[in-house]
């Protein structure tokens, strides 16, 4: 469709005209602009909702909201065209078969071996070995070999050695969806562990001997402690309501030596609405400070984040400080349980705060234990009531921790944002389906690529420059403050206003330090070369020969020197961004040239945008490209809007 206008959210004057293309996998908008021809690519699977608004004199507006928090506002001149686009997008954004998803057609031009290598990057067996199991207390159980006991669990699960197959099967029959207690994290230092399950089918009075034995076995697997915590992550009311349906929670009287604890994290429906409300606030055109804070509070988002963190902190404390094992469950044990277990693991074990470890953690607590990626993130057309930002909340929690412990994580904010992006993108096979069983049936590993390999290949982009493996923050357990610390939880504009670069700090400390570090490394290398040559020179001074080769050497050296220099200058380039401030001054011409400059700069500095060169090796990152491109375009601050009004009216 031609002559489509892409509107800027913050200012109607910033519209650009271009052509809209729909392909089998992407929505592509190409600007008409003569030299740059900026393109905006959006994967169909990123589309969360499409809204057709009432036709106006200028055309028919179409609003596309994406799952990675991008909002695209198009105006299509012909109502009929708009309707066609609308209908096609609705169809394209909601595929019914897995085979329609992008990962099955995505080809980064890697050979078979490389793809297999990619899938092997994260190996859970290796991970359990790293934790220290199997050992005297824990063993691998093959009871779920053909998914015979629980179809949403992995085939290989770790259970206490004293739990026989009979106990496991018995316990599974007493648990919602047969998700019996299994090991999530084992603490080598003191034998304490975190186990996970679903709720027991206790109703008002039912008991199950095997289930009681199962919990007993978990306790015995930690000889240092005479009780275990059972943490129900639901609000007490919800758990009690479940009893009427024959489900519920553990009765302390029936289980020997357990301490039962509720931690009120709300269910997926509350969370879905909360995010919805917060995004509405993010979308406000020119909110006042009160609008924003009030809306943020009203959404309850930060309250929910804090609840999840509190649960994680409680468990980490039990394991690390008290040396007590914990069994965690919610209703089905695949949403809140996954959040809480992974937050606790992250706090406990520095390994999960490395790049590789974080991949392993998601693979372990989310992918392998049957978090329903397909349902929660709407990969295929499904029940909208199943959709909920469960893993988004976990990623938000990680970011909150990164803010509090700036040196503790090997990776940076960008790493989290890109993982979030790809959970929805369906470009890689990792997060397809609802369980390991479904993924095996679809032969995901043979037919798609792994995100982890892709991220690992580009790991230089995701490094936190402040991370040092020998720093105190990278050792042992993290202890976030629990006392009155509401102010520690903050709104993450880098995520939820990700595509409005104008709102973010214009200079990135991370990027700056990364450039400095890279330069440092080159300097180190050069220093070595220089020292060597100096030594050689001193040696050869007596023999004074080989002048020619030396001169060659020198020219080489010179090359290195210049490249060094240009690198040293990179941080300064950011300052060009500054020019791009809004200003709706009449001097438009001047302004535009500044903008073009900025876009070029951003292309080199922002990996999201740098994907241009990637075009041949597959379209991968193009999908991340922001529509606002230069990003600084929207920096026309809302506040300034009103100024202008005064300007004109005054």
């Amino acid at each position: 469709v031609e002559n489509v206008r892409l509107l800027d959210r913050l200012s109607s004057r910033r519209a650009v005209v271009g052509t809209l293309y729909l392909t089998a996998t992407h929505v592509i908008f190409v600007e008409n602009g003569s030299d740059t021809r900026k393109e905006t690519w959006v994967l169909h699977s990123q589309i969360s909702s499409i809204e057709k608004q009432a036709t106006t004199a200028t055309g028919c507006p179409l609003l596309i909201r994406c799952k990675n928090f991008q909002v695209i506002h198009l105006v299509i001149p012909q109502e009929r065209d708009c309707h066609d686009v609308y209908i096609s997008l609705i169809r394209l954004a909601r595929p019914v078969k897995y085979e329609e998803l992008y990962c099955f057609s995505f080809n980064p031009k890697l050979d078979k071996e490389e793809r297999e290598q990619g899938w092997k990057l994260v190996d859970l067996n290796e991970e359990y070995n790293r934790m220290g199991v199997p050992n005297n207390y824990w063993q691998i159980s093959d009871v779920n070999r053909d998914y015979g006991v629980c179809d949403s669990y992995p085939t290989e699960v770790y259970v206490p050695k004293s739990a026989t197959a009979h106990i496991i099967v018995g316990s599974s029959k007493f648990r919602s969806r047969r998700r019996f207690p299994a090991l999530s994290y084992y603490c080598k230092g003191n034998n304490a562990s975190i186990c996970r399950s679903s709720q027991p089918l206790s109703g008002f009075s039912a008991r199950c001997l095997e289930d009681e034995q199962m919990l007993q076995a978990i306790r015995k697997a930690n000889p240092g402690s005479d009780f275990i915590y059972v943490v129900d992550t639901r609000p007490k009311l919800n758990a009690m309501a479940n009893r009427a349906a024959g489900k519920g929670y553990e009765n302390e009287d029936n289980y020997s030596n357990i301490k039962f604890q509720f931690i009120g994290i709300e269910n997926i429906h509350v969370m879905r609405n909360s995010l919805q409300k917060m995004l509405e606030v993010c979308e406000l055109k020119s909110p006042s400070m009160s609008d924003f804070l009030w809306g943020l509070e009203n959404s309850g988002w930060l309250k929910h984040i804090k609840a999840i963190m509190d649960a994680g902190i409680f468990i980490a404390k039990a394991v690390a400080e008290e040396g007590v094992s914990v069994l965690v469950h919610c209703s089905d044990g695949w949403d809140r349980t996954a959040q809480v277990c992974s937050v606790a693991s992250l706090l406990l074990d520095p390994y999960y705060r490395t790049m590789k470890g974080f991949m392993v953690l998601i693979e372990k607590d989310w992918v392998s234990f049957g978090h329903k990626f397909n349902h929660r993130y709407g990969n295929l057309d499904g029940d909208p009531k199943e959709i909920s930002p469960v893993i988004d909340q976990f990623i938000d929690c990680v970011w909150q921790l990164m803010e509090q412990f700036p040196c503790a994580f090997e990776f940076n904010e960008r790493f989290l944002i890109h993982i979030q992006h790809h959970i929805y993108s369906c470009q890689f096979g990792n997060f397809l389906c609802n369980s390991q069983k479904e993924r095996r049936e679809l032969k995901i590993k043979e037919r798609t690529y792994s995100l982890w390999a892709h991220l690992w290949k580009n790991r230089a982009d995701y490094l936190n420059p402040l991370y040092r493996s020998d720093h105190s923050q990278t050792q042992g357990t993290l202890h976030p403050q629990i006392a009155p610390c509401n102010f520690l939880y903050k709104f993450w504009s880098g995520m939820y206003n990700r595509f409005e670069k104008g709102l973010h700090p214009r200079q990135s400390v991370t990027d700056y330090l990364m450039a400095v570090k890279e330069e440092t490394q080159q300097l180190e290398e050069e220093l070595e070369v220089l020292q060597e040559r100096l030594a050689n020179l001193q040696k050869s001074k007596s023999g004074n020969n080989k002048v020619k080769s030396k001169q060659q050497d020198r020219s080489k050296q010179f090359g290195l020197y210049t490249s060094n220099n240009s690198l040293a200058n990179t941080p300064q380039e950011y300052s060009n961004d500054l020019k791009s401030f809004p200003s709706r001054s009449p001097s438009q011409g001047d302004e535009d040239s500044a903008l073009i400059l900025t876009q070029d700069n951003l292309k080199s500095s922002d990996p999201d945008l740098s994907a241009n060169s990637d075009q041949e090796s597959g379209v991968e990152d193009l999908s991340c490209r922001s529509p606002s491109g230069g990003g600084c375009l929207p920096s026309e601050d809302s506040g300034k809007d009103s100024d202008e009004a005064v300007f004109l009216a005054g």
Partner: protein
Amino acid sequence: TNEWRLSCVNKEFSVCPSYPPVVIVPKSIDDEALRKVALFRHGGRFPVLSYYHKKNGMAMMRSSQPLTGTNGRRCKEDEKLINATLCSGRRGFVIDTRPLTVAQQARAKGGGFEQEVHYPQWRRIHKYIERFHILQESFIKLVEACNDQSHNMDRWLSKLEASNWLTHIKELLTAACLAAQCIDREGASVLVHGSEGTDSTLQVTSLAQIILDPRCRTIHGFEALVVREWLQAGHPFQQRCAQSAYSNSKQKWEAPVFLLFLECVWQIHRQFPCSFEFNEQFLIMLFEHAYASQFGTFLGNNENERAKLKLPQKTMSLWSWVNRPEELSRFQNPLYEANSLVIWPSVAPQSLQLWEGVFLRWNRPSKFLEEAEEERINIIKYNKELQARVNMLRRQLAEMETGEEVQEE
């Protein structure tokens, strides 16, 4: 320059008690005219130069409100003075930090604003900035919220919202951006005033300079800015910074005007972390000394009072202490790279944050953040060391090689 001159008309503090003895005024206006203008301006604060934008020769002036009163008094000299700052045919903007209604009400008390008919080359913009007791109330509420010991997330956010503190930050930054925009983008001169010209006026003019002038983002430049735009310009520190947030008795003159300014600088700093030579600690240090200090710098309400108290003779200056190398190193921003451009901050709510370094200083765990800062410093220090060593070796090598070539020849 050609258009401006120094005037000693206020040598004995007789024309304007809250101005310094020497001020900068348009060259074409003589001292006699200045005296007349002073009578027409609240507290004698006639328009003086605050900032000269070298890039395009535009000027920012500040003053107090004109005393037009209800019958619309005029003052030919005032009109002449203001117009003298305009190049021929150019227009200027008057930024009034009061809303129109307040400005209109001020007429009843003898104050007022510039009528467009009498100042045809000027456009008036009202940009409201909260003052005095409203700010103080907001400040008290905010500190209360920060010290709230409850575990409730909602309560924290609603208290933060109810304090309105961040709203004031947003308003002030917006007004400063507007002033800067008029000068840099519109190429127009600007006159800023509120009613007295000792509070919101100074906030706006000094913040606009942070945005426009790279020098103000250096340590010495910022010190000079504080001296020029706050101390010499007669911000009544003694009245404003007496009790801080814990005053029970309602102090009539108490208001966190200077703190608000510092916080806005911090907000800009946060958005441009590499463009300032000083760090957050420097701003916090200034905040503390404004309220309680062993130095005489922030004592008194204006230069006149300080001269009478003989402070320069009796007390030490804060700057002489800060500028010693061993102290200075504590306030340096390791990420600083001189940035000669105008920096335009975002004023959207998503871009503004509470200044934790001040308000949550005693409540938040700061150890990890300090460690991070240390790490940053080390990374950059190591880089610089290496650079120096590489350069040294390079030079050595070059010397040896040339020596050798000479030998060979």
